[in-house]
Each structure stands twice: as structure tokens, then as C-alpha cells.
């Protein structure tokens, strides 16, 4: 390993290409942490947003008018405002109100910037997911649900065992699109200084003055990350494709 790092140090001496993230242990550690933060942020937001989507879609079919109204307003708010504005709204608006006095009497935020980024991005993608799942659920015939009820399933049981698995396969292409967009949107967390890959890179290039190198690394890392995700999702989409329902694979 050390030989590889030395090679990059030598590369700097020979060509001036200054990739400190390889030969400098401190920068290497920083960048790795940033990369991991981006991955964690993306994974946590994906899981949360899918959970929000499933629950929201279920609530949309609820008999209570109030619940349906809440979901409706939630979707309207998060769909029609830019995610950056939502992030600012949560962090600077709501976050400024939610403060306690910490040690030394200083105002101390209750929810950290990382948590706000996770919440805000999950809610943003979740709003789309609710509609995506809803469209999938609507495609499951009423007769199928009735058949499940006739077999003694409760509403919840039928939803979990019959409707959702079918709906999931139908809406997977749309869901994948949205999740890919979500991963790209994690860069917005930079605006509230969450230490993810973009933020860490900006720290490194201001310390080391190696903007072109870091920019290239950053771009390659992001394209790689999203590319892998798209590839995996695509394979999954193909595997989960409902036979007889048009080829989802050709849409992207």
C-alpha cells in the first residue's frame, strides 16, 4: 500500500499532479470519511424515503379524511419547492427555533446539520415516493384485494403481503429514477456544511490549492457512485420486471 502512496507522491514531484488524498495520510483520511458520509447519507435517505413512500401511500388510502389531507399537503409542499430551499427552510428556519442552551450558556441546536440533511432529503424524495407507490398500488386490481380479503387477510395484511409486493414490481423503474436523483441531491448538504464528499473536497482544495485534481477526483467519484447505483438498479429492474407489462429496461 505504502508503495502506491509513494508513487502518487512521486507523481506530484515529476508532473505536478498533486493528489494529496493518496500520499498525505491526513487528506486521505478526510476524503475517505467524506466518501463514507456521502454513501451513508445516500443509503439512510434512500431507506427513509422508501419507508415514507410506503407509509404515505398506505395513509393515502386511509378512510380518515384528515390523514389523507396531511399526506396531500406534504406532497404538495415537498414536490413543488426546490430541495435547496427546503434544506434552508429546515436548517435556518426550523433549526433556528429548535435550540436549547448548551454548556456555557451558548445556544445549541437540538437537531444537528447532518440530521437536518437526512430529514430534509428523505422527506423530499419521500414525497415523490408516495406518489410512485400510489400509482403502483392503483394498478393492482380491486379484485385481487377482494380475493385477499375473502381469504381472511386484514387490510394491513393484504397491503403488506399482496398489494405492496405487486405494486413494488410495477413502480420499480420510477422508484429507481427517484432514488438516483436522491443520491445526486445529497450534494446539496454541502450548503449546510455536512461533511460529505463535496464539502470535504472543498476543504482539501482550499488547504492544498489543488483544485483541478480534486475536481476531477470528485467528478469521477460521483459519476462512479451514481453509475454503479444505476447499473445495479437496472439489473434489479430487469429481474423484477413483471412479465407482460412492457419492458421497463428500455425506458432509461
Amino acid at each position, binding site marked *: 500500500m505504502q508503495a502506491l502512496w509513494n508513487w502518487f507522491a512521486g507523481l506530484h514531484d515529476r508532473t505536478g499532479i498533486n493528489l494529496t488524498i493518496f500520499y498525505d495520510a491526513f487528506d486521505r483520511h478526510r476524503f475517505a470519511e467524506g466518501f463514507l458520509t456521502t454513501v451513508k447519507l445516500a443509503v439512510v435517505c434512500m431507506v427513509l424515503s422508501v419507508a415514507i413512500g410506503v407509509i404515505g401511500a398506505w395513509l393515502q388510502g386511509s378512510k380518515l379524511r384528515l390523514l389523507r389531507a396531511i399526506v396531500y399537503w406534504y406532497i404538495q409542499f415537498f*414536490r*413543488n419547492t*426546490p430541495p435547496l430551499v427546503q434544506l434552508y427552510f429546515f436548517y435556518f428556519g426550523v433549526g433556528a427555533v429548535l435550540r436549547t442552551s448548551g454548556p456555557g450558556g451558548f445556544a445549541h441546536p437540538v437537531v444537528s446539520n447532518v440530521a437536518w440533511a437526512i430529514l430534509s432529503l428523505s422527506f423530499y424524495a419521500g414525497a415523490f415516493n408516495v406518489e410512485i407507490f400510489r400509482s403502483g398500488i392503483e394498478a*393492482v386490481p380491486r379484485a385481487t384485494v377482494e380475493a385477499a380479503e375473502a381469504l381472511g387477510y386484514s387490510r394491513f395484511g393484504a397491503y403488506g403481503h399482496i398489494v405492496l409486493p405487486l405494486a413494488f414490481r410495477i413502480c420499480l423503474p420510477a422508484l429507481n*429514477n427517484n432514488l438516483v436523483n436522491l443520491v445526486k441531491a*445529497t450534494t446539496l448538504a454541502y450548503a449546510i456544511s455536512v461533511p460529505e464528499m463535496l464539502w470535504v473536497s472543498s476543504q482539501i482544495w482550499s488547504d492544498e490549492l489543488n483544485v483541478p485534481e480534486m475536481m476531477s477526483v470528485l467528478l469521477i467519484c460521483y459519476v462512479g457512485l451514481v453509475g454503479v447505483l444505476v447499473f445495479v438498479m437496472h439489473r434489479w429492474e430487469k429481474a423484477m420486471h413483471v412479465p407482460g407489462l412492457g419492458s421497463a429496461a428500455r425506458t*432509461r
Partner: protein
Amino acid sequence: MNRRLGWFEPLPQATDLPVLLPTAERRAPRSPAELWSGLPRIRLRAWHGLALGLVFTLSAGFAEAQTGAGRPSVVATLIKWTPLLFSGFLFNIAISVLAMAGGTAVGIFLGLGQIARRAPVRGVAWLVTHFFRNAPWLVLLFFCMYLLPFQVTVFGTTVPLPDWVKATFGLALPVMANVAEIVRGAVQSIPSAQWESAAALAFTRRQIIWMIILPQGMKRMLPPWMNLYAILAMDTVLASIVGVNEVMTLTGDALGAESRPELLLPFYSYILIWFFLYCYPIALWTTRLERRFAVDR
């Protein structure tokens, strides 16, 4: 009868999962355009604007109530800053229009490149499109902001590249990739009989694309293209992160100069109303076109 699903798929015949078949046509998620272009579909309603107006009025009212004696009223403060903020907003519009124009011009050729007959051209076009589609917008914006020089010398004349021009380049790249996908999808959605009959009438391939396929594909391209523009117009605020003096940056500066925290919500909702007024007609028109073209078919 060969029914069409959404915009792109004929309903296949064979199936081994009959449980969903009766609803196959409802399978397509609510907006096929959304799935197809990979971008969220902007659906603005008039009441969204009213809601924004309500937020603005209420927050301005609260701010007014908190304004101490002897200080200028909220409305007076807003009017004072409006010319400056509006000049910033014009930058946003200029960035979005230029990025869209540039991105579209290159994107059309990139999209056509993806259906070229030469495999290397196809490969390169595919790679470029997917590279810029997979890169986050903000990273591309950073890339252009930091790596483009502040001036370029062309034939001895030095052309300065101010921040907002660099931001335009940064936003034009993802637009280009998305337009390429829109063009490719539209071209591929045209029935192959169109190609064959045009070829039978002795049109060359270039003529077929420019005179027969693209004009017909226009119907399918226009709604997602306009939707892309609406998204781009809203995303120009990303330029504030990289320090372009556009409307969000200027609003922040104005609030800093006033240092009255109660003005935060009135100012930002005021700006949001501008964006709404700009994007709403586009969204409305997109929906109308989509509907008209859907009936047409």
C-alpha cells in the same frame, strides 16, 4: 389492436402473471414523461401561488408587528431592496435561458449521436450523455466555477468570463445530457414504418431525421423539454452556493445589511413568489401541450 402504453411501449402479448393484466394500461406511473426523462415533473397549480402569497402576507404582517417605532416598515424595506433583488433575478433568468439554449443546441446532436450508425459515435455519445446525467448538478457547477479561467483570449482579444457565465456553462452541461435523452427517446418513439416509408421515397438518412422524424418527435420532445427548463430555472439558485450574485445571494446580503431576523420569511417568500410567477405559466403550458398531444395521437 395494438394499444400503446404511455409514450413508448406497445402492450406485449404474452404473460405469465395474469393477476395484473386487466390494469396493464394503468401501470404507467402518473406521468410517463417523468419516468422517461428521469426528472421530476413540475406540476404547479394556481393555489400554490396563493399559498405562497398567504405565507408572504402573514409573515410580513408578523414582521410589521415586531418592527419597533422609528424603523422603516416591512413594505418600505422590501420596496427599497426590490430593484437590487430584481437585477439578481434577471441574472437567474439570463443564466437559465442561456444554459437552456446552449444545452439544447449541443444536446440535440448528442441525442442524434446516440442513434448514429457508426458504433464509435454511438459509444462516445452514450458515454458523454450518461457521464453528465449521472454527475450531480452541483458538482458540475463547482467544476465549471473553479476550472474555467476568469478570462479567455481569442485571436488576441481578451474576453472576460464573469461568474455568471461560468455558472451558465456549469448548468448547460447537465441540460445538454438531459436534452440528449429527450431527443433520443422521442426519435425512438417514432414508429419504424415512418423510417421505412421515407427510405422508400428515397430520402437520405439525414433528410429522414431532420425532415420526417424530428418534426414528428417534436410533440414528444416539447413537454419534457419545457419541464426541464422549469427545473433549470428553479435550479439556478444553486449558483448562490458558488457565490454568483444572483437573487438568493443578494437576498442573503440584503438580510445581512438589514440585520432584522423577522424579515427572513417575508424576503424569501417574496423571492419564491417571483419564481412561481415565472415557472407557473411554463408548467401550465407544459401540461396543456402534454394533454393536447396525447389526444392527438
